[in-house]
């Protein structure tokens, strides 16, 4: 393995403040909930204290959003809304380095990912949707599709800023106002986004950001004056929210868990496939709902592929998220680390063969070495349950039909990967995948123009593209 000198990004760039307040009606205000301390998962040190919303704060935020909707935002021409949203996109780009460092501090993801993926993609989501604001009549939902009203949005901790962008940008473009709850463990970049929104001079109340735990999310989605609920997170919580909204008129979209198959045929270019497999499961420490967590490899090349995979994974550098050479950062929380440990233990107990990279791990913080299980059967928990960590389960198949059957043998259906040189086989496989996104000879590609979302228990509704606008329109 090559030796690299440390190349850390300076944490000063994050402009970390000791205290962060919630953002309601255009102002940063103290919440009346119990303040939370957000930590750096790579060091377990406290980064900042963040005020949280109580139920009455949720009500205040929804009222602010309602007022902004009724008096300003729903009446504003789309062309004017667009310019506000463009401003946000530009400011995210301008403050990109600050956001990237802050994201890596709060979330634990490698700086190269926050810098090259999270932040630029967040900016591009605002930029893309800004252009829709005055073109909704061309989106295929009739000549003058109307917004829904107040959107209550709850997002996860794996892509804190990016998920905020995915949620806020289309909501604003379509003419809705927003109350967004960031995840309990990663509230900071959303609050810097609030600062950006304030600097962009958005009318007060159009976007409100209220940190807190699950109870704040439940109060938000349950609020009687919310017209639209968008949730990204676990399938378990998604089901609770869908049940909670039963009998109401609230429009719901859910982007939930996954257990994606990444399928490698015997004619695939193996070195490329190995890169794709590594990207598929170790990107963002595997904290990715569409992660390629089940590798289905054609039996005839299984041994060769596994050997190459082990060699490649051995070179992954696990450690300081702020180091520009780090490939795999910190697990976001102790709770998540415990869950990963518990599921990997079940893999061993159920008889799968565990291989774990011998890479050095930092002394402090939440880290988990990249792990590959082979000899996995479909009945094992590590083949069925979402681990949401850097753990890959390898299964084999003989025929394309068997690959299809195994890939689809899950209640999830978010994504799939296909590796083969044969074009007709790619299309044949892609057609048969019960999954919302199919990456062929690539993996984990995201773009605001490309609709993203799941089949079955991976949720419903799409984000991105013309298709994604439906979630925020009364159609």
């Amino acid at each position, binding site marked *: 393995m090559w030796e690299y000198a440390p190349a850390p990004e300076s944490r000063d760039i994050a402009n970390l403040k000791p205290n962060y307040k919630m953002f309601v009606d255009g102002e940063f205000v103290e919440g009346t909930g119990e303040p939370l301390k957000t930590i750096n998962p790579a060091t377990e040190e406290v980064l900042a204290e963040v005020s949280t919303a109580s139920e009455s704060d949720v009500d205040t935020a929804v009222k602010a959003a309602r007022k902004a909707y009724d008096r300003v935002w729903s009446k504003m021409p789309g062309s004017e809304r667009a310019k506000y949203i463009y401003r946000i996109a530009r400011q995210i780009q301008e403050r990109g380095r600050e956001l990237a460092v802050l994201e890596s501090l709060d979330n634990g993801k490698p700086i190269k990912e926050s810098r090259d993926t999270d932040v630029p993609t967040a900016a591009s989501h605002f930029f893309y949707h800004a252009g829709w604001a005055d073109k909704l009549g061309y989106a295929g939902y009739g000549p003058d599709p109307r917004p829904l009203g107040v959107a209550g949005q709850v997002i996860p901790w794996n892509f804190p800023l990016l998920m905020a962008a995915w949620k806020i940008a289309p909501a604003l473009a379509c003419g809705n106002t927003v109350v967004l709850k960031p995840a309990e463990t990663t509230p900071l970049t959303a609050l810097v986004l609030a600062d950006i929104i304030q600097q962009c001079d958005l009318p007060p109340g159009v976007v409100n950001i209220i940190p807190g735990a699950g109870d704040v999310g439940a109060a938000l989605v349950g609020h009687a004056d919310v017209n639209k609920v968008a949730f990204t997170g676990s399938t378990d919580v998604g089901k609770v929210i869908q049940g909670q909204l039963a*009998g109401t008129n609230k429009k719901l979209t859910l982007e939930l868990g996954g257990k994606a198959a990444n399928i490698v045929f015997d004619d695939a270019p193996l070195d490329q496939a190995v890169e794709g497999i590594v990207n598929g499961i170790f990107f963002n420490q595997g904290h990715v709902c569409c992660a390629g967590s089940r590798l289905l490899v054609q039996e005839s090349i299984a041994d060769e592929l596994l050997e190459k995979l082990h060699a490649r994974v051995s070179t992954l550098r696990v450690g300081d998220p702020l180091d520009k050479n780090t490939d795999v950062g910190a697990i976001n929380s102790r709770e998540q680390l415990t869950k990963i440990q518990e599921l990997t233990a079940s893999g061993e107990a159920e008889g799968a063969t565990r291989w774990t990279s011998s890479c050095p791990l930092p002394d402090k913080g939440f880290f988990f070495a990249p792990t590959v299980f082979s000899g996995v059967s479909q009945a094992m928990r590590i083949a069925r349950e979402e681990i949401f960590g850097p753990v890959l389960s390898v299964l084999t198949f003989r025929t394309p039909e068997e690959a299809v059957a195994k890939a689809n043998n899950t209640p999830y259906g978010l994504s799939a990967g296909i590796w083969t040189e044969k074009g007709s086989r790619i299309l044949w496989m892609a057609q048969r995948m019960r*999954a*919302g996104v*199919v990456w*062929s000879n690539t993996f984990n590609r995201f773009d605001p*123009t*490309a609709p993203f979302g799941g*089949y079955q*228990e*991976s949720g419903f509704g799409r984000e991105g593209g013309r298709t994604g606008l439906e979630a925020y329109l009364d159609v």
Partner: protein
Amino acid sequence: MSDRITVAKTYKLYIGGKFPRSESGRSYPVADTKGAFLANAAQGSRKDARDAVTAARKAFGGWSGTTAYNRGQVLYRVAEVLEGRREQFITEVAGSEGVALKKAQSLVDTAIDRWVWYAGWTDKIAAVLGSSNPVAGPYFSFSTPEPTGVVAVLAPQQSSLLGLISVIAPVIASGNTCVVITSQDRPLPAITLSEVLATSDVPGGVVNIITGRTAEIAPWLASHGDVNALDLTGAPESIRADLERSAAGTVKRVLRNKAGEDFTATPDMSRLRAYLETKTVWHPMGV
């Protein structure tokens, strides 16, 4: 008219392309709007509903795998056969809904035209709802609408044929298969429709039709793990929220349209969109 004794029809269920009685052995009397006896209908059970889901799932691969052109022709064929049975439907709709003959004629004509309208959609949905995505990188990315799977349809309680057709046709036009609970009190046109489906190249299992008590059967479909979507149009108000809660258990797509929908109005694409998934496919570009 002669004084010949007519041959009375036995109204049965339609599951997997066959016409079984309810496995429960139950039937219930169906009357016209003035209370006069029309016929006995089969009173479907939980087991019938489950059999219907099995049939619908079995048919899904084949039906969703047919070409859009082929599906369009099959659906158009249904309209042809409907047209041939026009007089029978007028009589049944008039009897079931208590409307004058002229009104019944108009409803049946609109129903046949509705079927033609949806038949024409099969090979246009992908062009209208799909996209080529101009992503910021060297990739070809396209998105295409695909059927969501097995749809449980609670048919409208009032509109016995036009409403029924308006809720079934958009489900199967895009390649889904379905299990339909008919109007509880006006089920007879639905059974006659199943005879049309059985004789117009629609593969068995694509549409399964169950008569009976909506409130009794619907909960089993709402909670069924192999049902992907639920249309609440004909759900009794008292159990709508419960059905939605059950549907959440497997993250079903739920269409919440309420009773009172005007089926004589020209529809938009919303019922088509309700049962479609968007699949986005990526591939690198390069030499």
